[in-house]
């Protein structure tokens, strides 16, 4: 359950990010405008901390108010360039990795559904590599980051339009046990 609650939070934040990206609004962050996630499952979305999340207060990885709660970097179509608006997110995780020298992470790349499955799997991994590069340039050692990909197999949004695709072109930072 804990995990599910966390997942909802991540998705809600992700949806907020992607709505900015799609509409090309100014990158002023206002979380109150977060749109509900359109992912399948039908459960009501909420960013309220659940009791179980409360009990984990103090862990910046699970604190929804921590910059580390944001785990997804979004990409343009056919691109693996990490956009400036996500530099802060990646740098926050880099600082955490610098502090916690035992922590190893996985960065999982994802694509929208367009194109060939296997080629999309490779494109997703290249997106993950791009995020990893930002972190290694800032000093995290290569061996602590594994880059993998789900290609188009794990869409965050199930639709067949740009609104969904924008949420699916992403790299997710995953900590151990996630």
């Amino acid at each position: 359950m804990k995990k599910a609650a966390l997942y909802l939070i991540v998705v809600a934040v992700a949806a907020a990010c992607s709505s900015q990206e799609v509409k090309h609004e100014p990158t002023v962050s206002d979380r109150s405008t977060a749109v509900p996630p359109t992912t399948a499952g039908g459960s009501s979305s909420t960013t309220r901390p659940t009791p179980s999340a409360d009990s984990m207060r103090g862990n910046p990885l699970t604190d929804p108010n921590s910059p580390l709660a944001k785990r997804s970097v979004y990409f343009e179509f056919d691109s693996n360039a990490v956009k400036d608006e996500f530099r802060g997110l990646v740098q926050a995780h880099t600082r955490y990795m610098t502090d916690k020298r035992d922590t190893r992470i996985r960065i999982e790349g994802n694509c929208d559904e367009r194109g060939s499955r296997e080629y999309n799997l490779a494109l997703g991994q290249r997106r993950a590599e791009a995020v990893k590069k930002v972190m290694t340039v800032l000093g995290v050692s290569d061996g602590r980051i594994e880059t993998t990909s789900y290609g188009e197999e794990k869409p965050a949004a199930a639709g067949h339009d740009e609104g969904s695709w924008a949420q699916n072109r992403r790299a997710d930072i995953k900590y151990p046990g996630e």
Partner: protein
Amino acid sequence: MKRSFLFLGVLLLALCARAQLTIDITTSGGRQVPIAVMPMAGDASQPQSVSDVIAADLGRTGLFRIVNTGGVTPLPTEPSEVNFADWTARSAEALVIGKVENVSEGRVEVRFRLFDVQKQGQLASYSYVVAPAQLRATAHRIADVIYERLTGDKGVFSTKITYVVKRGRRYELQVADADGFNAQSVLASNEPIMSPSWSPDGSRLAYVSFDVKKPIVVVQNLAQGTTRVVANYRGNNSAPAWSPDSRVLAVALTKDGLTQIYRIPAAGGDAERLTESSGIDTQPAFSPDGQWIAFTSDRGGSPQVYRMPAAGGPAQRLTFEGTYNVGPRFSPDGKTLAFVQRDGGRYRIASLELATGQVTVLTDGILDDSPSFAPNGKMILYEAQVGGRGQLAAVSGDGRVRQRLTSAAGDVQDPAWGPMPTN
């Protein structure tokens, strides 16, 4: 015999089989051979009508027109009972007759004859003694004989296909007869399953599993149900392709950075790197003679189809039209590649004739993927997105005949057509 044991093994492995595929065909142009397939005497008392399956097999190819056989009594079972003048009047050019008889406890004999109506001559005659449960498979074998006698090409009605069915978050790898019947689930998971690939001897499937939360390459023995992880290196492991002798797998790995192509013994062993590019190299496919590997690479700036010697070496670019040509698959004669081409935001199956460089777009979908040749080279099975769902479709090598294989349940994706059965 070996084949039926293998089939039995698959049956025993079956987890469940709900998704039956139904097939609609469309054809444009081209002459269809009018053929009459008479109901076989004794057919009606059996669990499976042999003549119905034969007619459906032949009709589905788009190469035949099934002639009405209504009102012919008694059912002819011997050449002397055939009224050729009547069949000429019905404009049939070929005629199939036969009978089905119980010959002993649990055994049935199926006899059939194929005639050329104009010449009033017999083209083929065979007899099979089988268990009643094998009647459907026997009908496919008869259809194979008829198809080969009338077209000169091997029939593929006794082959199998594999594909992934996705329902909600549930994935199943299924194996079915080429007509979509007898679908069996050989693997089920709550994580994605991708890129199933038949070993050329038909005994094993290689595929990509995400059961460990990242892509790894697994080989599954269909008769025994045993699995072996053949590639689980750091990063991605994907795109398995078999060498023609079934001994080696070409795979795409990211263990040294971006996706590159490696070869691994199918029985397990170390990965040997075959490509050395600074971009993405993936989707390898061995040529049928084992000399070449065709693959996708974006080393030139956009993803294009290349080929290199199977042991690695200098690569030669094969596609030049457009900015997205990926996922090559060789035809069984090695003369043609089928691949996915993007054109104006649409993804279609195209073919490349290697000798001339001629490219032909074969499909008109919006998101077509995963082409796979029938083992006689005549049809290409692929995945199409229809109404937001993955569905299987097939197109003839010349683009004239199209089949859509519709499943009632879920997304059907990533098909691969199996090899000819070994007898």
